[in-house]
């Protein structure tokens, strides 16, 4: 682990969802993890993870408590942001039919519940070249998929049928699945490796 990752102050948006799992992984990797529930908490961090959860709940509460404008400002000035599942929906620019506000950070279209309902939730090992040759354990729970990528967005992983399930645009990351529910820390390590100001 580099000195840089050790000192990272990483926030996890803690309005609803599996924020504790993210926090535990980040702390295991030596980052200073903190929970973000108010706009002013964003002042104390250098990077932010938006966890899995219910995107409508997260979007509504984030909007109501004024987190979205501050987050947009921080992301525009280069703060790394990673959204997993509901988090990917929250940071997307376009989400068809979403009933609550989203942060509109990343130039992607994300489709909710793209594989179906809970009974269609699944595990599958994934090829993610940026993380090396060893397959990554993919946990998909009522997961979204990334259906359209802007010109600066790079697909990091796709299913055999071409469906994009992980993407990066500069310092922004979106994943359909939940690395925080597995014992594989590589995706969190990768996020901590993104340069911070």
């Amino acid at each position, binding site marked *: 682990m580099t000195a840089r990752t050790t000192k990272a102050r990483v926030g996890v948006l*803690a*309005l*609803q*969802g*599996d*924020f*504790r*799992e993210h926090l535990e992984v980040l702390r295991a990797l030596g980052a200073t993890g903190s929970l973000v*529930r108010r706009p002013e908490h964003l002042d104390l961090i250098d990077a932010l993870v938006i966890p*899995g*959860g*219910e995107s*409508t*709940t997260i979007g*509504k*509460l984030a909007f*109501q408590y004024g987190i979205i404008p501050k987050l947009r400002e921080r992301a525009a000035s280069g703060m790394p942001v990673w959204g997993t*599942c*509901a988090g990917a929906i929250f940071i997307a620019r376009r989400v068809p*039919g979403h*009933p*609550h506000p989203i942060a509109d950070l990343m130039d992607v279209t994300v489709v*909710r*519940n793209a594989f179906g*309902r*809970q*009974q*269609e*939730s*699944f*595990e*599958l*090992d994934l090829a993610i070249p940026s993380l090396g040759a060893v*397959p990554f*354990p993919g*946990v*998909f*729970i*009522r997961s979204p998929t990334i259906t359209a990528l802007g010109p600066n967005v790079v697909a990091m992983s796709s299913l055999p049928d071409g469906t994009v399930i992980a993407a990066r645009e500069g310092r922004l990351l979106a994943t359909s699945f*939940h690395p925080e*529910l*597995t*014992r594989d820390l590589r995706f969190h390590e990768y996020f901590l490796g993104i340069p911070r100001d």
Partner: protein
Amino acid sequence: MPSRPAPTRVLAQPVTGTWLVKAGHAKMLRGGVIMDVINAEQAKIAEDAGACAVMALERVPSDIRTAGGVARMSDPEMIIGIMKAVTIPVMAKCRIGHFAEAQVLQALGVDYIDESEVLTPADERYHVEKGTFTVPFVCGARELGEALRRIAEGAAMMRSKGEAGTGNIVEAVRHIRAITDGIRALAALDAKGLAKAAKEYRVPLALVRQVAKDQKLPVVLFCAGGIATPADASLMMQLGAEGNFVGSGIFKSSDPARRAKAIVEATTHFMDAKLVASVSTGLGEAMRGIALEAIPAGERLAARGW
């Protein structure tokens, strides 16, 4: 079963219904509020208020209480109507031990099944063998042993039983305290004591050892039964619940949309008393409520199941 996973396995094809996706879904609900709704209109109100899921049922517990008779699984038409109306997860209840109702709910495609004491139990000896289903289950418990028995049967999420339909939080407090106290008590036990506890609880020793070591259940624990106000929601979160089910408390109040929203906010910001005060202000009348002593022992729902 809770202990997971075999790290060397390779999943070249998608596998559904794994423990990780079942118990993982409950983790996604954490910090949220799951609301009882009886039609599509209420489901929309719940979704707009920020509910993380809804429980579709024909009658809320307070009406089940008033109506008496046998309470069964809801009409599939009504459940499907709610599934079509909202994008958030939809749960539905089956009777304790009624695995055929559970099969029907799974066939309908609900996201979670609540094997619930609020309905009239169907089997006096066995709960549903939940591990064999693709759909995950949530179950109620009054104390640690009961919670562990349900988890050993495959429940992927737990909740307190409380005393549903009363608007009275006292039973939920008792149950959440009994569960968390039970977990703490395990920490003090040696190997022999843990074996004795497993025998007493009638669950596998490995499960008791895991809970003693982790000092928490291997699944998410919500509060259910009696929440009527934002302060109730905050109380239960501070006592160790990871989220709240609200049944009659919302749609039996004078301003359901506003109360629903207030309870969602109080659940997220449960440590922020100023915020809980602010969302509690001018909410209108809460549901009427029933003192526990006023309910004959034979009519207490929490006593159902074992």
